């Protein structure tokens, strides 16, 4: 059952091949028997999941099945879930039982989806390896000595290992796409403002966006349909109609113009990743697309701009974690200052503190113009580069990540090298564009991901390109052998 895509499971439920309860029990069993090694979940919610599954079965019997009725999924632990611990991967929120649901959670539940639990993540989404979580690192099911990427590493690993057919993620600088690439799954970061941020714990508010992670573009389309739409509780949520993402998946690619920026193929790029990406582009050409060389000259400065803007916003967003109204408070504070400083120092991990310090510094007196303001101007240049490119092309493509899954601990002591993992994804967040990562090859037994970037609100087009590619190839169907024997036992 776990080898089926969300789309197939949807059909199976509709045909009555199995019930939502059976499906939920199956995946819960898989998680319980296999996740010990992966550590992809922080919290499992079996009782709630079974209750939701039963409700889904009843709704179907009553002819009131929602579009995702009975489909199991997991939420990144950055989304607030009423009555369930919402930790954001941090000791700071280890005891935080959210009093409310995020809009994304609400919408997916309203569509009939069943939440199995909350997935592991880099603390406050700050990381590209899932090693900064208070709950320990997540392991990549393709090679458990390697990282799954981050920050949505728990969701990526769980989907890749087929512990859950789909999951939600969030992407501030590549946190959906980079782990999707490193674990061989499909993940989409929508246009900024397409999916509500209400109830999604903020890292960098002008960059954060939630999106789906699954094993195919078609599955992402299904989830994104339910997640998208205007939300009056989020001022940055866009009030414009949501396209029918599944309807245009099969559209032929004839006439499609694909921009290929030379900046995404630097001399330093691993040749094998470059050639894998070019092979994928060749496949799309075969389907009638035209490759067009484009320039994104300012994208070279996207990592420095991002590492000012994101930490600056984060330093302010994380000020609310002060030990007063919820979350961690240090023992026996001597006075108010001591309470603030110890609660925050003991509650936050090293990477979070580093970014708070960088952000505080970048906003502080005398540095604002040289750092923050300058970064915002560079952000404009980057956005202009994309706008100019999109005058001439429909989508822009390249590798998702300059490297494959690396070994646990390999970059732990070198934040700057770690930050370069997002060199191809970050510019998209700065511009607010939608982008998808999907597997396009295997090197040394590890997946390689490619990125499809679209113009604003062209999620349907990105999904169409990805789906056509996946119809012609089978990279997205490759699953790690992780857990095969254990599952056999479990099923027996």
């Amino acid at each position: 059952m776990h080898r089926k895509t969300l789309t197939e499971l949807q059909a199976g439920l509709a045909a009555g091949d199995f019930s939502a309860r059976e499906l939920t029990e199956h995946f819960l069993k898989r998680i319980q028997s296999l996740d010990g090694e992966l550590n992809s979940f922080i919290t499992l919610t079996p009782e709630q999941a079974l209750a939701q599954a039963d409700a889904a079965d009843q709704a179907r019997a009553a002819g009131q099945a929602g579009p995702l009725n009975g489909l199991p999924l997991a939420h990144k632990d950055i989304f607030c879930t009423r009555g369930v611990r919402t930790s954001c991967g941090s000791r700071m929120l280890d005891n935080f039982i959210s009093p409310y649901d995020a809009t994304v959670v609400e919408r997916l539940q309203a569509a009939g989806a069943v939440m199995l639990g909350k997935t592991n993540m880099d603390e406050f989404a700050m990381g590209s390896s899932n090693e900064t979580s208070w709950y320990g690192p997540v392991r990549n099911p393709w090679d458990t000595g390697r990282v799954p990427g981050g920050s949505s590493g728990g969701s990526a690993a769980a989907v890749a290992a087929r512990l859950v057919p789909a999951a939600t993620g969030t992407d501030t600088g590549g946190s959906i796409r980079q782990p999707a690439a490193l674990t061989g799954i499909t993940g989409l970061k929508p246009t900024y403002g397409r999916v509500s941020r209400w109830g999604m714990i903020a890292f960098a508010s002008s960059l954060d966006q939630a999106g789906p992670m699954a094993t195919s573009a078609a599955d992402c389309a299904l989830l994104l349909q339910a997640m998208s739409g205007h939300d009056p509780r989020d001022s940055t949520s866009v009030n414009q109609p949501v396209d029918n993402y599944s309807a245009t998946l099969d559209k032929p690619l004839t006439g499609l113009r694909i921009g290929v920026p030379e900046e995404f193929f630097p001399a330093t790029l691993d040749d094998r990743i470059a050639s894998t990406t070019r092979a994928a582009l060749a496949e799309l050409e075969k389907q009638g697309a035209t490759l067009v060389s484009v320039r994104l000259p300012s994208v070279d400065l996207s990592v420095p701009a991002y590492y000012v803007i994101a930490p600056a916003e984060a330093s302010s967003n994380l000020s609310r974690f002060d030990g007063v109204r919820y979350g961690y408070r240090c023992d026996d504070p001597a006075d108010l200052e001591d309470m603030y400083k110890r609660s925050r120092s003991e509650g936050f991990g090293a990477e979070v503190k580093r970014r708070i310090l960088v952000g505080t510094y970048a906003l502080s007196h005398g540095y604002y113009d040289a750092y923050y303001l300058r970064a915002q101007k560079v952000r404009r240049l980057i956005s202009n580069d994309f706008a100019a490119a999109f005058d001439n092309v429909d989508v822009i493509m390249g590798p998702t990540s300059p490297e494959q899954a690396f070994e646990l601990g390999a970059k732990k002591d070198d934040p700057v090298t770690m930050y370069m993992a997002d060199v191809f994804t970050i510019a998209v967040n700065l511009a607010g564009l939608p982008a998808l990562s999907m597997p396009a090859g295997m090197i040394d037994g590890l997946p390689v991901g490619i990125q499809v970037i679209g113009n604003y609100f062209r999620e349907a087009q990105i999904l169409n390109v990805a789906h056509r590619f996946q119809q012609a190839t089978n990279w997205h169907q490759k699953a790690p052998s992780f857990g095969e024997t254990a599952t056999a036992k479990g099923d027996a």
Partner: protein
Amino acid sequence: MALDPQALAGVAHLARLHLDAADSDALTDRLNSILGMVDRLQEADVDAVQPLAHPLDASQPLRPDAVTEQDIRDQVQALAPASEGSCYLVPKVIE
């Protein structure tokens, strides 16, 4: 531009983070490697460029002036590390 341990202490105070004296040098080095990378921003010619704060050129939606919230104190105050008599408790605030 670079941080020294003394400047770092000032920044840490602004952020209300406690720094271990023992870690201060190592942390200073790491932050300086980040700031060094970030310093590449100075290469850009941005004199005539308007800063971009939001990816989309949109304006703030306005909500009608109506009371829509209920009293949720009992539910949410259960999350507080310390509370008494309907108030959140903190070590004495001195003005």
